[in-house]
């Protein structure tokens, strides 16, 4: 009888210890799993959107000093990769996510991601201010950037070779312009540059240069009017032409998140889509979503 009691007490002690160890293990897991996220929000992606994103962050942090927003560019593809591998909270993209990218997000997070249209942009075609060419059709632009049209003479300009400036393939603008204008491969002679500002600068310094990028950057260069076809008039990217759809190369700018936002992230996104955030969209040369 006594022996049984001793055994029983040992058993109970062991059981208690097991419960304590298991309890600690569960608490440790829960601690790591549910650890509250710090109020630092990282933003990465589209170079087209980087100035806008920096402005949003700057103004938001003034009114919300408890929040730190860290904004970097790198291109839409880079931002989406960062969203997938968890190194950014917000991805800015000037193109929609591809199915293959959504699939990666599904595999890693069990989520299709959240797409938020935060602004509209017209992709502007820049030519040097001295260039007499004022307007080009989508077909001519396709010919120029695919390398089929090589001389300005073929589109009503001087007898000079066309110099092409474009973006790197990680850029959403590169992809959008390729899919909607070039509709094929870019010419091998198209010089790739690491940002829209660099494209604008190159065209500014090259009499026979032509480039493309966000409307907000077109300073020191001439906006080339874009015609849908020969019969339609040429349009510049303005709030009105983008809103009424007459400018042929307009697009949405996106914010992508892994999951539906909560807490501080939600407040920030709501603010971007609200009057203050959309006012900054206009101030930076883009167009509001509503």
């Amino acid at each position, binding site marked *: 009888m006594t022996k049984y009691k001793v055994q029983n007490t040992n058993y109970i002690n062991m059981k208690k210890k097991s419960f304590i160890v298991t309890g600690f293990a569960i608490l440790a*897991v829960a601690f*790591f*799993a*549910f*650890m509250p*996220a710090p109020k630092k929000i990282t933003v990465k992606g589209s170079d087209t959107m980087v100035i806008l994103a920096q402005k949003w962050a700057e103004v938001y942090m003034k009114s919300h000093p408890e929040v730190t927003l860290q904004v970097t560019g790198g291109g839409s593809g880079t931002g989406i990769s960062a969203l997938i*591998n*968890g*190194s950014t909270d917000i991805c800015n993209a000037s193109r929609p996510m591809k*199915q293959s990218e959504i699939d990666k997000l*599904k*595999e*890693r*997070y*069990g*989520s*299709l991601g*959240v797409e938020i249209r935060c602004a509209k942009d017209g992709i502007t075609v820049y030519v040097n201010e001295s260039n007499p060419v004022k307007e080009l059709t989508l077909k001519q632009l396709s010919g120029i950037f695919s390398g089929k049209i090589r001389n300005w003479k073929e589109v009503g300009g001087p007898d000079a070779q066309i110099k092409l400036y474009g973006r*790197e393939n990680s850029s959403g603008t590169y992809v959008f312009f390729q899919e909607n204008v070039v509709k094929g*491969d870019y010419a091998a002679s198209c010089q790739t540059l*690491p940002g829209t500002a660099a494209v604008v600068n190159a065209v500014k310094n090259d009499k026979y240069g032509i480039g493309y990028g966000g409307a907000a950057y077109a300073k020191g260069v001439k906006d080339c009017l874009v015609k849908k076809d020969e019969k339609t008039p040429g349009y510049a990217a303005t709030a009105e032409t983008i809103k009424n759809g007459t400018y042929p190369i307009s697009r949405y700018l996106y914010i992508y998140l*892994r*999951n*539906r936002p909560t807490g501080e992230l939600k407040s920030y996104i709501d603010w971007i889509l609200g009057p203050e955030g959309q006012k900054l969209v206009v101030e930076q040369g883009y167009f509001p979503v509503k």
Partner: protein
Amino acid sequence: MHMKKLTFFTLSAGLLMMLAMINPAKGQSGTDTLAPQVSTLRDKISGVEDRLATAEADLAKLTKIKLSGYIQAQWQHFEGANIYPSNYFSVRRARVKIAYEPSKGVAFVLQPDFQPGNFVVKEAYTRLNEPWLKTFSLWVGKFNRPNYEVEYSSSDLEALERSRMITTLYPGEYAIGAKLEVAPQKIPLKFQLALFNGNDSQVYPDATGVNQNAKDNTDFDNYKDLMARLTYAFKLGHWGGLTIGTHGYFGGVRAVSDTLLKSDYSKNKSVAVGSKLNRNWVGVEAQFYVDFLGGLVVKGEYIMGVNAFPGYNSTTSTTSFTSSVNTTKDTVTQTYTTLKTTSIAPNIQRNFSGYYVYLIKNIGKRNQFTIRYDKFDPNTKLSGGDLGVASYNASSTTTTTVKNTFGTSPNVLVNKEVNTTKVNNSLTSGLADLAYSQITLAWSYYFDDNIKISLAYDIPMNEKAGTAGKVMSGNYSAPGGTPTKLDYSNMIHQNVLTLRFQAKF
């Protein structure tokens, strides 16, 4: 881009230095003196530009090579009595994927697995993407069979291993053949149509247990197997999405013996050796993604059909000679004994079904919890009580004796030939028909972009097999090599704990 900046900087610095070297104090006319020097500089810049173009071209070639891969090292503890050693470290995967894209739309992919002691080329294929619609692609070589869990990379598997159904139907995951893939850019639809040898990594043992299908790079027969898979992804607004799909396998394997059994081990029909035994099945799949406090996934697949297994047919012959002398009768008897043994296993087609269901919850960026239940019944026509009982037996033994006597008494020579033909032609239900289900609990912690640490516990549950009078058992060697038996009339405890460390790049 860094290279360009560096070159620009170098050129600018060089120019400044050269300009500094021009000494106007020598009193020469500025324009006359500068002209040849500017010309020289132009030539030099032009030379640098040429070199830069060459360097850029070389760099562009390098960017066409893409390297990725992962290493999985793990410690496992096996609770089963039949596994010794019961715990060990192992390298599950050590893979490097090399993709070379010489031009847009063309890719060569090679994926070796450097698992210690077992170097294997897992993937080796060429992919051609059609450049106009960007919808069609043609794959030729060795690549994944079109199935959801097969195509889901081992590095992403939430339950650490694929379900028993998939590893049984598609052993080794990869197969040699050709595939047409249709994936329109604007429509979330994917269709795959593939033609394979069909017997890749299948094990068809002969009478001595040696695999008759041991050659990895050729086919076991002339029959090619067709696989098709179609999926469509729906978006469910802000909540998530649903992907549904179906796949089918339509193939065959050659008969090695002349009898074909049904799933219940009764004779179906006689078949010609070399004729086609159908292996046909279809499956449905669904993956439901919902954004509920982070990603929540419910996904599953169900497959049913008929799988075929070739038997074997081999003959051995032994001859022995004895002689005896009867001194009383003055006779000599010479006996030639020939024993011809034919070992036959009939071919069999088994009806099967199986499924798996996952529930996966992501918490934050780093934690993922998974529960999976999977079941695979390789023979739906036999219940547990039939296992070890249902059998086919057409064995026979025939003996003929030919006797020749030479001479007359007293000197007689007897020449006797004894020919015995033994045919072992039987098959009894057993472990190949045993159904299993399994619960897997797993937790993965994503340490950073490259490192994942996972802990999983597998609880397999076998079908209780055999009747009271006939217990089905399986052999195994206990530590020290002692032959022992596992009693499958009970649930056999064979849980596995896995702690895995994965590095992916």
